[in-house]
């Protein structure tokens, strides 16, 4: 299964992915018309300055298990196993922001969304462009990134193992399996560090 992989060290901070993401999640699906839509389509990937003012594309990691899923009060957050994507059901979401408190990456935003019930403020985050994927397209952010900071590829086994390990260590309950010493040592920040080193 292909996954979006972030290579932060390649990012030049051009924010093209943010525009492409907003357009992809608009009603019309095109940048020019999306600009005048209401509600205004907003990006689900957030490029900010890193420690040395380098770019850093921050998006949902679709953690497994997902801390946001466990914190969601009405159970609006679920995993689509076929695409390994953590999704939010806009009809069920009550905009309680419990997930904001759980997401170690701070990638969930709260606003009306063109694809949700009208005028309803809900939690919104990356959905791996599953609608585009159904049409055989790749995620919009990847398509538009010209420097390869975002790629869509098969995760190799080593990378998958690392990601799962760290995701587990990061979930609200720590999941430190006694028979696998060392798991518990990995934590959120280490995961992110690993992610960065790994992608170098």
């Amino acid at each position, binding site marked *: 299964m292909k996954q979006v992989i972030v290579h*932060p*060290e390649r990012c030049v901070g051009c924010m093209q992915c943010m525009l492409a993401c907003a357009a992809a999640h608009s009603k019309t699906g095109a940048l020019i018309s999306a600009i005048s839509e209401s509600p205004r389509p907003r990006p689900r990937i957030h490029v*900010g*300055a*890193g*420690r*040395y003012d*380098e770019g*850093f594309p*921050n998006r949902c990691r679709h953690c497994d298990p997902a*801390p*946001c899923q*466990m*914190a969601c*009060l*009405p*159970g609006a957050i679920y995993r689509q196993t076929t695409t390994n994507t953590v999704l939010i059901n806009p009809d069920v979401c*009550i*905009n*309680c*922001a*419990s*997930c*904001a*408190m*759980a*997401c*170690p*990456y*701070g990638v*969930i*935003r*709260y606003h009306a969304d063109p694809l949700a019930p009208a005028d309803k403020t809900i939690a919104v985050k990356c959905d791996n462009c599953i609608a585009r994927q159904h049409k055989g397209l790749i995620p919009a952010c990847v398509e538009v990134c010209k420097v390869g900071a975002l790629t869509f590829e098969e995760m190799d086994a080593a990378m998958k193992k690392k990601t799962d390990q760290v995701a587990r260590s*990061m*979930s*609200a*309950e*720590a*999941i*430190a*399996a*006694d*028979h696998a010493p060392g798991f*518990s040592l990995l*934590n*959120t*920040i*280490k995961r*992110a*560090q690993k992610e*960065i080193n790994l992608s170098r």
Partner: protein
Amino acid sequence: MNYVIIGNGVAGVTAAEAIRQIDARGQITMISDESHPPYCRPMISNLLEGAVDVSRLPIRGPDFYDRLSITPTLGSRVTSLDVNARTVTTKGGQIFAYDRLLIAAGADPRPLDAQGLDLGGIFFMRNIAQVQEMIAALADTRHALVLGGGLVGFKAAYSLLKRNIGVTMLIRSGYPLSMQVDETAGEMIQQVLCDHGLTVRTGISVTAFEGGGRVQTAHLSDGSQVPCDMAIIGKGVFPAHGFVPTDRIDTDAGILVDDHMATSAPGIYAAGDVAEHIDIARQKRWVNAIWPEAAAQGRVAGFNMAGRALAYRGSLSRNVIRMFDTDVMTAGRVSPRDTDETCRFFSAADHRRQTYRKLVFEDQILVGFVMINQIEQGGVLASLIQSRTPVKISAHHLLDPGFNVSRLFDR
């Protein structure tokens, strides 16, 4: 293997699901005195507000018990537990034998010490039934009294204000949410509520209620009176372990559990609001009666009960509250009663944006924060507290609402 789970709240539900992941054949019995399907307890305040109806509250499909082959015994209260015989007994005299028992009985509202509590119109707010009674009484409610400025009192007040009912909140301490936030944040929160019509009186409590059948007047500790036709008691909760033999199972405020959510008695586990484990920010035993911890503890308990060793790393007190256009998020140690001279504080306020942030550090370890508005990245801070990672960058970066996660990483 014969599993018995007391309580069908989120801790009991996640435990049953974890057991079934590992043990497809064991017998699971779930006993609860509430007969609703498993539901989202925090959302009873949305129910009171009128924002949702009861059909929106279940957290699992109607086939939950069937799908997981659980034998539910609902509307039935456990009254005793025999550690030697390995049985629990319900009020109706039914006896259930167990190999593994999970106590996930949640918490009960703390009672109020006042006269006239038998009058109509006086409520606790812990379950659907209580809120449905409140809703039935709303038609002839002009003015409500909310006792306590904690999370539940606060949500009750908010819901009633949204229904255009006048609300007076009585708080024994100096400001609302005093267990969760500092004074500055507390006052900002109070201001927002007052702007929307709430009357707050601090340093005061009720001594007696009076009325003919239904409550009409409350007598207060300063000798004054307030008219009210509804009163909601929100004085906090305490773990519901009244049926537990405390000479056989170690209990403090809650039932003491180890990293595997096991109690001191063989085969008996506890999870959720009833259990007491370690608080990560405080580094001591603590009951954190919140939803995400109940869900996580239930899961860990379930895995361990079914034989997969899994450790829980401790809980973190945290809450997020949205009221009108103001958002409040808080975690760990922020309240003056939780901090001391070993703590370092960093704060920033932006009056134009109506934001406030305060971080509490012990050495390089973040142990608490409160933020008002622009809360989207609060989870990053919460995970810093949970992981106890030394923060090497300037705290001022963390105070910036737009700070980027990658600032935290050495590259």
